[in-house]
């Protein structure tokens, strides 16, 4: 018989848990009790429902039909009054019962009602559910004045709504700053002025003493003697986790129901999620963390058991149309913190970023919140911002703007930036959905990605991404989780591969309970890379887990032909090589011979079956694969240098060739490009390469973390050295550090922005020992890596894969 799961609390966290559980198609008989007489609706949207911007029907997330479709028994309008843990039974106020094997509590929270005299008068309400909203709408139709107690998120949204409904609204706030949980006083002032301009009145630093009236409320008295008349009082002074039921059943509670990292209460059969829980001492009041809890609870209920909830950092947006406000983390900061502040009063823009040793601790944005998600992401990843600190304030668009014009902010927002904090949807997810599914409207994006489907705070961003996306086509690293096959992040997986000594893909799948039998096209190449870069000797490279370009060592073209790019060491060639290339081009009727941007020659449009023979010819002339197709060392560009150039200070060509000879054949997290310029005129463009050398009179400047391409980034100066030997040692050490620590498909530029130049310096400059061991590890793995794939694959035993396994034609076989 199926196990029985009972959910108490038919709200956002509880039902999301059920949805996650269904996704994992776990086998439960599910029963749901909800005190409210509906399906599950989007509580967040009660604010726009109050303003009249949306309706109850429009904010329904799960209709009764949905429960029926999934064979879920729904008891709506029934409040559970007792849990009998001995007999594993819940009992509702109407006497109906349900037995459980596992119980899920998601009872949310209750608005806190100030216990002042008169708090129980008619017309004194909270702002929590549909019933409250209906009461407000009703009051707006029959009365004039409303007072909202509490100038926080909820209170201001209530005030805004009541005003839109035509009431005269005053907001009473205990301190002198609105939303003091989210805003510093300056942003708070700006918000207050804005709302005043819209007609909301404020009574600041007022503490409520008494609510007066006979049956219905008539007014409020304050401690300092002030008085106001009103026909409606909305209490929005905070929420209290709803733990009454759990407590009565003897389940351990403090402020909330105390749960562990798998969302279990002290009774392991009883799970709890949502606002009613207290996890590691914190109670949450926003949906993002609740949705994370839901994932974990579902994962554990489905007996997968690898999900863990480790707490959340939250960011908030006020959902008052026309007011643009973002806040995250510690926006005051302590004595060790620095604050970068930007003010443009006439434009009504205020930005404040709080930094602690170059990492973002918190941020407040008013009037321009476009970069909120980016700051939030930098904050959560603990990224070192020193590299772009001076442009930080102007947003991601300005850190190395590749000139995408008006849309550049969303365009340049990296694909792993979280856009929809509620549902954890990244820009990449949205862009992918828009592209692969040809989406054109906000609603389509909502439906496919869930982005902006919860609080809608990111709607503006999603719309801009939508506008900016149609037409683009580029792939970037996905953030945690690695892909749909697992919940582990890139970093966790690689860590496991190292610490658990996993040397094969099957070992990874087993150890980390992959959901799919053999991964997917996004995780397999990554895993293959992590395996061979962590265990160069032990792990076997898996061609079937490589993209076709790396499998057949050429770039596939849209017409199924391939490109062949032989290495030209340091961009230097010889008449003999050129002759061999010319011969090959003619012999195999190559439609286009092109000089690439990487200082070598591309033979474009080669038929697959011709590849091995062509490679053999090129090998014979002493040429090897240029890996123009690989997540590997691509080119080492050079300029003329001191051999001939009148300005040259060092032999850039010679050094470039040495660098390429040392590093060719190595696999990297993303493609890797180098260049050597013979003097600061820098004709080899070394300062937009992953590793660039600029020769100077006294030696060499070593530049790292640059690239051209989609988002140009100029390198950071890593060090100055004196000899070629040092250049080679630093080059190898840097490349090895990058290979070992960057995420798959993370190029040096985003990697350095994530970990910080100072970190890289600490590993390579300050720690000489470490530099030498990195250098040694690199050379060691090169002993295995440095064999020319063309030579290998043109051997007869490999040639087969380039030709059909069988050719049939009508002469042999009558055609059917």
């Amino acid at each position, binding site marked *: 018989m199926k196990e029985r799961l009972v959910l108490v609390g038919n709200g956002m966290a509880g039902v999301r848990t059920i949805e996650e559980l269904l996704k994992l198609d776990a086998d439960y008989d599910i029963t749901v009790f909800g005190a409210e007489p509906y399906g599950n609706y989007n509580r967040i949207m009660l604010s726009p429902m109050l303003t009249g911007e949306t309706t109850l029907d429009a904010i329904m997330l799960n209709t009764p039909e949905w429960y029926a479709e999934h064979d879920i028994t729904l008891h709506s309008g029934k409040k559970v009054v007792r849990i009998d843990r001995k007999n594993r039974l819940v009992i509702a106020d109407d006497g109906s019962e349900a037995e459980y094997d596992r119980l899920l509590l998601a009872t949310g929270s209750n608005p806190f009602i100030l216990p002042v005299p008169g708090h129980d008068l008619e017309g004194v309400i909270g702002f929590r559910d549909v019933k409250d909203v209906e009461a407000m709408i009703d009051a707006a139709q029959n009365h004039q004045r409303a007072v909202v107690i509490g100038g926080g998120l909820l209170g201001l949204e209530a005030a805004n709504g009541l005003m839109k409904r035509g009431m005269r609204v005053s907001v009473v706030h205990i301190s002198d700053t609105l939303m003091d949980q989210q805003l510093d006083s300056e942003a708070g002032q700006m918000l207050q002025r804005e709302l005043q301009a819209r007609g909301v009145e404020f009574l600041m630093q007022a503490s409520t003493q008494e609510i007066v009236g006979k049956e219905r409320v008539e007014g409020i008295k304050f401690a300092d003697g002030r008085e106001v008349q009103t026909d409606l009082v909305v209490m929005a002074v905070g929420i209290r986790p709803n733990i009454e039921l759990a407590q009565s059943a003897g389940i351990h509670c403090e402020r909330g129901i105390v749960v562990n990292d798998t969302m279990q209460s002290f009774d392991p059969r009883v799970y709890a999620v949502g606002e009613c829980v207290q996890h590691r001492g914190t109670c949450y009041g926003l949906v993002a963390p609740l949705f994370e809890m839901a994932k974990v609870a579902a994962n554990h209920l489905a007996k997968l058991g690898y999900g863990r909830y480790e707490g959340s950092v939250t960011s908030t947006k006020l959902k008052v149309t026309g007011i643009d406000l973002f806040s995250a983390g510690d926006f005051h900061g302590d004595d060790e913190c620095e604050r970068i502040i930007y003010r443009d009063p006439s434009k009504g823009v205020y930005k404040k970023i709080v930094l602690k040793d170059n990492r973002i601790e918190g941020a407040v944005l008013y009037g321009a919140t476009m970069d909120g998600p980016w700051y939030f992401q930098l904050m959560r990843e603990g990224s070192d911002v020193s590299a772009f600190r001076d442009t930080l304030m102007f947003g991601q668009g300005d850190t190395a703007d590749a000139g995408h014009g008006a849309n550049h902010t969303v365009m340049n927002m990296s694909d792993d930036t979280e856009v929809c904090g509620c549902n954890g949807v990244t820009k990449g997810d949205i862009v992918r959905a828009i592209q692969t599914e040809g989406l054109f409207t906000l609603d389509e994006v909502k439906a496919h990605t869930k982005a902006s489907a919860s609080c809608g705070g990111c709607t503006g961003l999603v719309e801009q991404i939508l506008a900016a996306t149609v037409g683009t086509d580029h792939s970037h690293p996905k953030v945690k989780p690695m892909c749909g096959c697992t919940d582990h992040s890139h970093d966790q997986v690689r860590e496991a591969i190292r610490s658990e000594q996993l040397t094969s893909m099957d070992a990874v799948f087993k150890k980390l309970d992959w959901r799919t039998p053999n991964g997917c096209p996004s995780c397999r190449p990554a895993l293959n890379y992590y395996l061979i870069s962590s265990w160069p000797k032990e792990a076997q490279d898996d061609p*079937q887990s490589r*993209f076709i370009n790396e499998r057949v060592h050429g770039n596939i073209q849209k017409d199924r032909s391939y490109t062949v790019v032989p290495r030209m060491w340091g961009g230097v060639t010889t008449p003999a090589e050129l002759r061999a290339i010319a011969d090959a081009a003619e012999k195999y009727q190559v439609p286009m011979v092109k000089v690439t941007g990487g200082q070598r020659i591309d033979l474009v449009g080669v038929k697959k079956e011709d590849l091995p023979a062509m490679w053999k010819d090129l090998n014979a002339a002493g040429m090897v694969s240029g890996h123009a197709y690989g997540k590997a060392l691509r080119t080492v560009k050079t300029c003329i240098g001191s051999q001939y150039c009148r300005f040259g200070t060092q032999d850039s060509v010679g050094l470039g060739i040495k660098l390429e000879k040392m590093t060719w054949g190595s696999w990297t997290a993303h493609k890797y490009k180098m260049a050597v310029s013979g003097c600061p005129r820098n004709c080899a463009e070394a300062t937009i390469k992953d590793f660039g050398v600029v020769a100077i009179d006294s030696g060499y400047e070593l530049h790292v973390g640059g690239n051209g391409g989609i988002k140009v980034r100029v390198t950071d100066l890593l060090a100055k050295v004196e000899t070629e030997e040092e250049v080679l040692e630093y080059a190898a050490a840097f490349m090895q550090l990058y290979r070992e620590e960057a995420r798959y498909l993370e190029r040096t530029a985003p990697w350095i922005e994530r970990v910080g130049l100072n970190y890289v310096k600490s590993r390579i400059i300050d720690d000489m020992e470490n530099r030498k061991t990195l250098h040694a590890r690199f050379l060691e793995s090169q002993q295995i890596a440095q064999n020319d794939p063309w030579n290998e694959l043109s051997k007869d035993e490999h040639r087969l894969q380039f030709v059909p396994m069988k050719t*049939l034609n009508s002469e042999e076989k009558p055609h059917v």
Partner: protein
Amino acid sequence: MSNWTEVGQLNDIPRLGSRVVDNNGEEIAIFRTSEDQVFALRNRCPHKNGPLSEGMVHGNKVACPLHNWNIDLTSGEVVAPDKGCVRRHEVKLEGETVLLAI
């Protein structure tokens, strides 16, 4: 019913890989899964004619090398949210021998 034609040995095809059969100029891709099942599809992605034989095989699906559409090997249907379908061919194993119906 069309007749079974021998097109090669199972080991001619790498696990989680594919080889093509040239049938009078029309390519048919034969796929081999991790469980050593074989499937045959016309070697043209319904999106933009990408060569499915060059794609990555995972589970009972293959991902097209050009724009990463996924095609279900068992049915030839494109995996949602993308839409489309590829012509399937009957294929079977007799011992190690791969037989294709054409």
